[in-house]
C-alpha cells in the first residue's frame, strides 16, 4: 500500500491547519457563508438535510486495518457510531458538528487520509477495480497509476476550478468492475504488441444525461498516461460549458463536439505538453509501484476449507456467493456484504469496522478494499483461513451470503439524508431485501443487480442497474420509475424506462412481479435476468408490471 511521503504529510497538515482557521473565521463572523462554502466543499464538508456531512476519500478503495480502525474511532467520537460507504469508494459521516470537523480531519491525517477534493469542481477521488492486485483476470495492478493520478490531480493549480466535477476510474482487467464506461475518464490497462498501455474512454457519466463513454484512444503507452490525461482535462477546462451547470460535464462537451473533434483537440494539446513531461512522473511511478508489491502469500494446505465446505451448508452458500477466484489458486477474494437483509446498504458500525480491520490483520495481509457496490473486500485470504474469517463475520453480522444477488442493492442516501434528493432510497432497498429474504428465492434468482437513486443525479447508479429504480417527487408524492437492462460492466448499457412510475407502497410488489416474470420466462438458471431481458426485450416485463397490476386491481 502507498505510504505518505514527508511532502504528502506536510501538505495534508497544512491544508488541515488552513481549514481549521477557516472554520474559526466562519464561527467568529469574519467569513460569510458564501465565502466559506467553497472552502468547506474543497475539504469534503457538505450541509445536508439534518446535519453537516463529511465525505472522506478512500483512494482507489484501498485501506489498511489501522485506517479502518481510525474510521471507526472517528464514527464513535464525532458521529453517531457508523459510517456510510459510497459508490465512489468514499466514506461519509452523516452527523458531524462544524466545530468538530477540524479534529476529524486531523484524526484522518494521523492515518494518512483526508477529505480533499471529495467535492467541488475538481478531479475527485480516483477509483479503481476493488479486486485490483488480486483478481485472476488482471493484466496489471491499476492502483499505482491511480495513485500517480491522485498525486498529480491533488491541488493541481490548473484544475481547481473546472467547469464541473471530474471523475476518473481505472481498471486493470478485461472484466470491468470499476464502471469505467460511466466516468469522465475511464482507463483500462491493455497490452498491444508486448507493450502495456491504456485504453482511454472519455465522456461517460450517469446523472440527468446518462452517456456511455467513448474510446478516445485505444492505446496510450503507459509512460505517456499522465501527459495524455492532462491534455484531456486541459481541453475540457477551456471547452467545457460554464454557462449551464447541467451541460457542464465533459460528457456534454464530447456529445456536442463529437468524439473526433475532441480527439483532435486533445492530440494537439498533447503534442504541446508531452515534451514538458521529462520523466519525473515516471520516477515517481517507479517509487509508487514498489509500494504496491504483492504480499508474500502464505503456503499451507487447504483441507480445513475443503472439509468445512463439504460439511457446512451455510458456509458453502457463503463461499459460493461471496468468494471470487484469486490470482493464487490457494487464496480467495472475500467480499464482505454490507447488505444484511433490512440493513442500510453501505453502512458499517464502528464495531463492524473494527471486526473487519481485525480480520485484515489476522488473515488478510493488512489490506481491505471498498467497492463501488458498497461492500468491503478482503482481497487476499488463504483458503485455510476462510472458516475462521466466516465465523468472525457471522459474529459481526457481516456474513450475509448475497453478493451479486437481488438484495445486494446499491442505494444512495436519498431523502433520508441528502439535500438534493427528491425521494427516499434506503427504505426501498431495505424492503426489497426483506421481501426476497422472506421468499427465500434469491439464490434461485441468481445474478441480479438492483440500483436505486433518490434523484436524477444518479449516485445510486440506477441507469446501469439490471433493474434501476429512480425516486422522484411527483406532485408532492414519492414516485419510483423503473428502468431495465442497464449494465455498468464491459457490456455497458443504459437501462430503458418501463413506463409510468409507482408509489412507495407499489414499488416493492412491482419489483417482485418483474422477478417473477423473469423466473417464468428464463431458459434456465444459467440465463441471468440481464441475459433474459436482452433476449426477450421489454414486453413480458412491461406486461408483468402494468397488465398484471391491473388484473389484480380488477
Amino acid at each position, binding site marked *: 500500500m502507498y505510504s505518505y511521503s514527508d511532502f504528502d504529510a506536510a501538505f495534508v497538515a497544512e491544508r488541515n491547519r488552513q481549514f481549521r482557521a477557516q472554520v474559526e473565521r466562519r*464561527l467568529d463572523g469574519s467569513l460569510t457563508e458564501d465565502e466559506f462554502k467553497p472552502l468547506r466543499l474543497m475539504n469534503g464538508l457538505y*450541509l445536508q*438535510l439534518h*446535519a453537516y456531512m463529511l465525505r472522506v476519500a478512500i483512494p482507489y478503495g484501498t485501506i489498511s486495518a489501522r485506517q479502518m480502525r481510525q474510521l471507526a474511532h472517528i464514527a464513535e467520537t464525532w458521529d*453517531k457510531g457508523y459510517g456510510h460507504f459510497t459508490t465512489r469508494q468514499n466514506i461519509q459521516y452523516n452527523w458531524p458538528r462544524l*466545530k468538530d470537523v477540524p479534529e476529524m480531519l486531523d484524526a484522518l491525517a494521523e492515518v494518512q487520509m483526508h477529505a480533499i477534493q471529495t467535492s467541488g469542481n475538481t478531479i475527485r477521488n480516483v477509483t479503481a477495480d476493488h479486486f485490483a492486485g488480486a483478481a485472476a483476470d488482471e493484466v496489471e495492478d491499476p492502483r499505482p497509476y491511480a495513485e500517480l493520478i491522485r498525486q498529480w490531480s491533488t491541488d493541481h493549480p490548473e484544475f481547481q476550478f473546472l467547469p464541473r466535477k471530474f471523475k476518473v476510474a481505472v481498471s486493470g482487467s478485461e472484466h470491468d468492475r470499476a464502471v469505467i464506461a460511466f466516468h469522465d475518464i475511464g482507463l483500462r490497462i491493455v497490452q498491444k504488441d508486448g507493450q502495456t498501455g491504456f485504453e482511454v474512454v472519455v465522456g461517460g457519466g450517469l446523472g440527468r444525461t446518462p452517456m456511455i463513454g467513448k474510446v478516445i484512444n485505444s492505446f496510450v503507452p503507459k509512460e505517456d498516461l499522465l501527459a495524455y490525461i492532462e491534455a484531456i482535462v486541459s481541453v475540457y477546462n477551456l471547452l467545457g460549458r460554464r454557462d449551464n451547470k447541467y451541460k457542464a460535464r465533459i460528457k456534454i462537451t464530447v456529445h456536442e463536439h463529437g468524439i473526433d473533434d475532441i480527439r483532435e483537440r486533445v492530440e494537439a494539446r498533447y503534442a504541446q505538453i508531452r515534451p514538458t513531461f521529462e520523466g519525473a512522473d515516471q520516477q515517481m511511478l517507479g517509487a509508487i509501484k514498489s509500494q504496491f508489491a504483492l504480499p508474500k502469500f502464505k503456503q499451507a494446505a487447504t483441507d480445513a476449507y475443503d472439509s468445512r465446505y463439504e460439511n457446512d451448508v451455510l458456509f458453502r452458500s457463503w463461499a459460493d456467493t461471496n468468494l471470487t477466484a484469486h490470482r493464487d489458486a490457494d487464496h480467495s477474494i472475500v467480499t464482505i456484504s454490507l447488505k444484511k437483509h433490512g440493513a442500510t446498504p453501505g453502512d458499517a458500525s464502528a464495531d463492524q469496522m473494527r471486526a473487519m480491520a481485525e480480520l485484515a490483520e489476522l488473515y488478510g495481509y493488512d489490506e481491505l478494499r471498498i467497492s463501488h457496490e458498497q461492500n468491503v473486500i478482503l482481497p487476499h485470504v488463504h483458503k485455510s483461513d476462510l472458516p475462521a474469517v466466516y465465523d468472525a463475520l457471522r459474529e459481526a453480522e457481516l456474513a450475509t451470503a448475497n453478493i451479486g444477488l437481488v438484495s445486494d442493492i446499491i442505494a444512495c442516501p436519498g*431523502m*433520508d439524508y441528502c439535500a438534493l434528493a427528491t425521494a427516499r432510497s434506503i427504505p426501498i432497498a431495505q424492503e426489497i431485501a426483506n421481501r426476497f429474504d422472506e421468499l427465500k428465492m434469491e439464490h434461485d434468482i441468481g445474478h441480479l443487480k438492483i440500483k436505486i437513486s433518490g434523484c436524477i443525479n444518479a449516485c445510486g447508479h440506477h441507469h446501469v442497474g439490471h433493474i434501476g429504480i429512480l425516486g422522484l*417527487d411527483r406532485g408532492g408524492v414519492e414516485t419510483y420509475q423503473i428502468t431495465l437492462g442497464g449494465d455498468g460492466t464491459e457490456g455497458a448499457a443504459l437501462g430503458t424506462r418501463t413506463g409510468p412510475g409507482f408509489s412507495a407502497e407499489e414499488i416493492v410488489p412491482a419489483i417482485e412481479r418483474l422477478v417473477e416474470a423473469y423466473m417464468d420466462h428464463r431458459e434456465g438458471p444459467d440465463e441471468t435476468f440481464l441475459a433474459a431481458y436482452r433476449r426477450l426485450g421489454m414486453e413480458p416485463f412491461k406486461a408483468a408490471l402494468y397488465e398484471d397490476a391491473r388484473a389484480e386491481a380488477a
Partner: protein
Amino acid sequence: MPKPFTPKVVTANDLVEGDVIYLTADDGWTRDMREAELITDEAHAQIRLLHAESLPLQVVGAYLADAKQGTDGPVPTHFREDFRRTGPSNYFHGKQAETAE
C-alpha cells in the same frame, strides 16, 4: 397569473450543529416546528426571511418552507419538510431521537 401565497415558516440549519431550526415570532430559533411562526402574509414572509438571512452567525441556508396550521402549531405540507422535522427513516436519529429524550 402568480400562484396564490400559501402559509410558510422560515427554516434553516444551525451554523454550528447543522441541524434544522425554525424562526419563532419573537425572533428566536426553535428546533420544534410546532413553535415556529406560521406566516400567512407574503410581504411579512419576505421580511422574516431577510431577518433570518441577516443572522449569518446563527443560521445557514434560510428559506421559506410551506406549512399549515396543525393542532399544536405549524406542520409541513410536503414530505421533504416532514423528514427534516423528524430525521431519517433508517435509524432513530436526529430530531425524533432528541425530542424523545
